[in-house]
């Protein structure tokens, strides 16, 4: 029984790491542009397709495909920010919600038209490599995903904490006008934020595409879960979001394994409702960092 418990925990942590990648981008975009990006799930989906096509047409290895997808999606996300979201920065939140929701539907249906609903799988070549340790099983693929997502999250944390651009991003998140007065090019920061969000989503999409499937509808459920994570963790807080992502991964995995799998997708939302009732200031406290 203990082995099963730890196996479920391991599964949950891997899932949580992937959620963290998506939710972090969403949280950054919200923190800096004050935009609720419902199209984030589609960034993740398009990124997964980029990796899929890189592997099937360019015959590159999995890791290279991941980098191609991240770079490609960074460019696409920056372009989308420039063309679609730039005009509504600073407007009420409802504008960005409606706009991004429309964008999400449009992108998903375009993908459905061009890529077809036929589910496909990204082949990493590591799925059939299995490791066992004291009764715990993990495939090479999942291990690689765990390591990669931890690396990406650390890289992001370092970038935001120590680089000049990262510091500017934090400044814009705190006070847009003051940052502008201090000479920060906030338009560039907007583009960079979207590019980072897109790249992280693409990385997550590629990993999920390897573990599960790539299809045009993969973004819908994930974006809702990511919003739950961002709300739980606090908008714009990196540590809180990572914590919340892993929590959601664990809740799904343990709830699915020990309570009932059929209602697995309900657990994160149940958690959110409980949070709103008992701790409305968020998991990691009230004040802005």
């Amino acid at each position, binding site marked *: 029984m203990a082995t*099963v418990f730890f196996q*479920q925990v391991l*599964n949950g942590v891997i899932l949580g790491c992937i959620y963290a990648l998506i939710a972090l981008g969403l949280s950054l975009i919200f923190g800096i542009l004050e935009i609720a990006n419902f199209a984030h799930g589609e960034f993740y989906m398009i990124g997964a397709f980029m990796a899929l096509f890189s592997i099937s047409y360019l015959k590159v290895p999995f890791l290279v495909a991941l980098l191609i997808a991240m770079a490609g999606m960074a460019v696409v996300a920056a372009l989308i920010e420039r063309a679609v979201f730039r005009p509504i920065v600073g407007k009420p939140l409802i504008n960005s919600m409606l706009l991004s929701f429309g964008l999400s539907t449009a992108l998903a249906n375009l993908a459905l038209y061009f890529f077809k609903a036929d589910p496909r799988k990204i082949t990493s070549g590591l799925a059939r490599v299995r490791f066992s340790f004291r009764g715990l*099983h993990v495939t090479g693929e999942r291990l690689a995903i765990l390591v990669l997502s931890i690396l990406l999250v650390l890289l992001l944390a370092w970038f935001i904490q120590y680089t000049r651009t990262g510091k500017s991003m934090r400044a814009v998140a705190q006070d847009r006008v003051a940052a502008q007065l201090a000479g920060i090019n906030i338009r560039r920061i907007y583009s960079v934020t979207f590019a980072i969000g897109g790249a992280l989503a693409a990385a997550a999409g590629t990993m999920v595409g390897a573990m*599960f499937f790539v299809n045009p509808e*993969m973004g819908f459920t994930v974006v809702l879960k990511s919003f739950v994570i961002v709300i739980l963790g606090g908008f714009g807080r990196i540590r809180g979001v990572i914590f919340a992502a892993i929590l959601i991964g664990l809740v799904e995995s343990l709830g699915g394994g020990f309570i009932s*799998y059929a209602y697995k997708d309900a657990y994160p939302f149940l958690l959110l409702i409980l949070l709103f009732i008992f701790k409305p200031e968020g998991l990691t406290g009230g004040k802005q960092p």
Partner: protein
Amino acid sequence: MKRNMVVSLVLLLALVFAAPAFSELPKAPVRIGVVLPTSGPIAYDGTLALNGVKMAVDEINKAGGIAGNEIQLFVEDSAGIPATAVAAMEKLVGMEKVVAVIGDFGSSCTLAMMDVAQRAKVPLITPVSLAPKITEMGNIWMFRGCDNSAMIAKAFTKWAVQDKKADRWAYIAINTDYGRGSVDAFNVELEKLGAKVVFTEYFNQGETDYYPIVTKLSSTDANGLCLFGETVDLSRVIAQYHEMGIGDRMLIMDPTSGTFNAKFLELTGEYADGIVGASRFVASIPTPAAQKFVADYRARYNVDPEKYAQAGYDCARMVAIAIEKANTLDTEKVRENLAAIKYEGPQGKAHFDEKNQLIIDEYIIAVNDGKFEVVAGPISVY
């Protein structure tokens, strides 16, 4: 050619002797309706059934039609949506004045159409829908032209428990009427055979992460894993089951053969090998009738037929025979003749029981090296 001559001769005789006694078939095309999903998520499978229907009708028309009258098909797309299926059914019986309707695919669509059939007094025959209650509701206008999950359960459990010694079962099933209904039907048979059920979990359609289930499964002592679901979902279950490192512990069973298709093989590769299931039809059934059907179908569609195409073909043929026997477009007579039919199709002999459920034989199928092989059967379930 010879067969055509025999058929025409029979038709001629039938005309000469039978015609004066009853109201004769009018000299006009016989109108038959079809409702199947040719768009939407199950369009691929729906089209397979339609292919079978079209092939049967073309064959009958080429051989002289029904008593010299050509069959005219009226095909409506239900898109797998019950409301659309009902609208299609209303159109067929109300405007097109068809004599009988073949359809639909999903059980929920068929259940919705049944009432229209009863009200309009038009026989409705489904080539695919599995839900047992379709034929349990006492609607005499409703026919099921294929096996149902209870019959599959009967044929399959006996083989799996007694021949394959799988006596501790685990279920992973889709969270729908089909999944839950199938588990119930199988539990009834397992109890009779003295086998135990040690694990039951349901998943929602489109689920991707089955690790919570397979992890839990790994701690049970099950020696048979029974799956109910569709191609894509089950391909993930199978892959993650193997990733968990318990691949050789259980006999993997897909009794309703939802996985026995080319897409599943593509998605799972060698993980598909060793999966066993029951099916009323696969292209490798060695009887001459089956092989002739497979050859004709392949010549026409360039692909092997599977059970949906076979059922579409059989339903169209049975309806045509019933109309021919009735020798009238009176739907009450057509219904009576359909209920009393003694049919022999590519799959074997078939007839309807008192609930209008088709009684046909089952075959046990195994995936071996990417091919579907018949390992046992035909098994009679009557």
